């Protein structure tokens, strides 16, 4: 980044190095967008995706595609904006990347961090991000014929975009509702906390093979 | 309290007595300029026939309305439920039905509590006394014959002035 404010081609930087890209759209730090405005926009996005969708899987894929470009851009934007120059480096390891998603990205989008981050026990390439109550699903009640749909597929698309943009290609990120299964399990154990989070959603991130190979090499490099 | 109108319907759905105290509205130039809505009583001079027709229309509307409201209430609340009154922002309608299926209806301003006891009194103390017990009045009152006799009218007048809450 050039520190001088010499006029020339390309971006002009003000003397205090604060460009328009460094500023939030909202002047105040905690300003929020209208949730209702988003809800109405999301209604239209879903009905747009529903047009011509063959089945639930297709519909989720379409929502995913709508979120993907958002993720790629948000990665850049959030890294550019971060106040600490050390943390504005693109994450190169899996864990920092997932931390970045669960913290910065989530805070930026929803005003709070994600609820949990886990690595799958069965598949080393799979990671899970838990969201107890996805904001995008706040007002959505699914009709019976679409009960397996989870509209958080849009958020999954954003996550996929971030991963891809950071150089972590994935086999795909998908959103699954786990609230009901968990309620059933809890019900069997004695109803403790049953249906506490009926909308609980897990984002399954499955990285490609080469990502894991690279991760292994990098791990060896730091330890050795 | 403001009393708008009072009706008695007999068991043949006919209105056998009605009175109204609708205040005359001032005719301002602005209200003349715009088209009069259905619900307002025209204040020009020479439409008394129109007004009369409007009144009988009102009677029919009110009868139909309380009849269907009563049926709806019985459907929802059971056979022994009785419809008492309803209120809009402009007026309140009070309802009392006698054991002989005569219906007493009164329209007042919205601040009144339920006036059913008063309607009952009108029936018991005035209608029964001066109409039913009047040897000159017929048993049925098609077209309101025999209801609006002098005793009943006078009794009603004093009742409205003296008994109803001010």
């Amino acid at each position: 980044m050039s520190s001088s404010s010499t006029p020339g081609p390309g971006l002009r930087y003000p003397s205090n190095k604060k460009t328009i890209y460094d500023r939030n759209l909202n002047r105040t730090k905690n300003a929020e967008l209208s949730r209702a405005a988003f809800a109405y926009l999301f209604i239209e996005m879903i009905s747009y995706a529903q047009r011509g969708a063959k089945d639930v899987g297709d519909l989720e894929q379409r929502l995913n595609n709508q979120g993907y470009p958002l993720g790629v851009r948000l990665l850049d934007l959030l890294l550019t904006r971060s106040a600490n120059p050390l943390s504005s480096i693109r994450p190169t390891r899996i864990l920092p990347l997932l931390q970045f998603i669960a913290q910065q990205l989530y805070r930026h989008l929803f005003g709070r961090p994600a609820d949990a981050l886990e690595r799958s026990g069965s598949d080393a390439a799979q990671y899970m991000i838990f969201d107890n109550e996805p904001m995008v699903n706040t007002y959505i009640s699914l009709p019976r014929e679409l009960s397996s749909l989870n509209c958080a597929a849009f958020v999954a698309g954003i996550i996929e975009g971030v991963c891809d943009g950071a150089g972590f290609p994935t086999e795909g990120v998908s959103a699954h509702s786990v609230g009901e299964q968990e309620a059933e399990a809890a019900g069997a154990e004695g109803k403790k906390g049953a249906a506490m989070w009926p909308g609980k959603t897990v984002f399954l991130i499955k990285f490609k093979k080469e990502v894991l190979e690279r991760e292994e090499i990098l791990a060896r490099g730091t330890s050795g | 309290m403001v009393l708008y109108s009072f009706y008695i319907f007999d068991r043949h759905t006919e209105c056998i007595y009605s009175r109204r105290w609708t205040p005359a509205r001032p005719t301002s130039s602005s209200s003349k300029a715009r088209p009069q809505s259905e619900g307002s009583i025209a204040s020009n001079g020479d439409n008394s026939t129109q007004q009369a027709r409007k009144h009988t229309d009102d009677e029919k509307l009110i009868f139909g309305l309380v009849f269907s409201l009563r049926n709806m209430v019985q459907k929802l609340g059971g056979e022994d439920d009785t419809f008492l009154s309803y209120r809009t922002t402009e007026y309140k309608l009070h309802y009392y039905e006698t054991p002989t299926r005569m219906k007493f209806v009164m329209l007042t301003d919205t601040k009144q509590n339920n006036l059913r006891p008063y309607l009952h009194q009108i029936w018991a103390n005035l209608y029964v006394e001066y109409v039913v017990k009047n040897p000159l009045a017929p048993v049925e009152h098609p077209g309101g014959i025999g209801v609006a006799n002098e005793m009943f009218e006078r009794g009603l007048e004093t009742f409205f002035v003296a008994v109803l809450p001010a």
Partner: protein
Amino acid sequence: MVVFALFIISKSGGLIYNREFHTGLNKLSSNDLLMVAGSFHGMHEITKQLCPNPPPPTIPSNTAPTPFAARATGLEVLETSQFRMQCFQTLTGVKFLLFTEPQQPNIDTILKKIYELYADFVMKNPFYTVEMPVRCEKFDRGLDGFVKVRG
């Protein structure tokens, strides 16, 4: 306090939602319910016309006439010996009917809250079609929570 039931009637007079919270009203078949809703829709219209003393058109000459001012409202509260029914009509013509005990206080706030839940979980639901029966799980759950907490 007891809230018996809630009906929602669409602007064309169809019953789009009904929910019983507490026994007390007669059990009606869905056909009868539809009929009650339809006839109430008509009666509501008549109660508007019966206004004995329509408010004079008080439109100041310097402001544009609004479609909402001085509009006669129809039936708002219906009292019977067993229950009390409050009707709240939104500006878009949807009617909420709440059946409660005769002595129930604060019905206005209850209805306002229900309207809020409706605006949130029904109108903001991508899978709800306007004028169609309301089948929204979150709306049901919201009503349950709200009415039970108060009850």
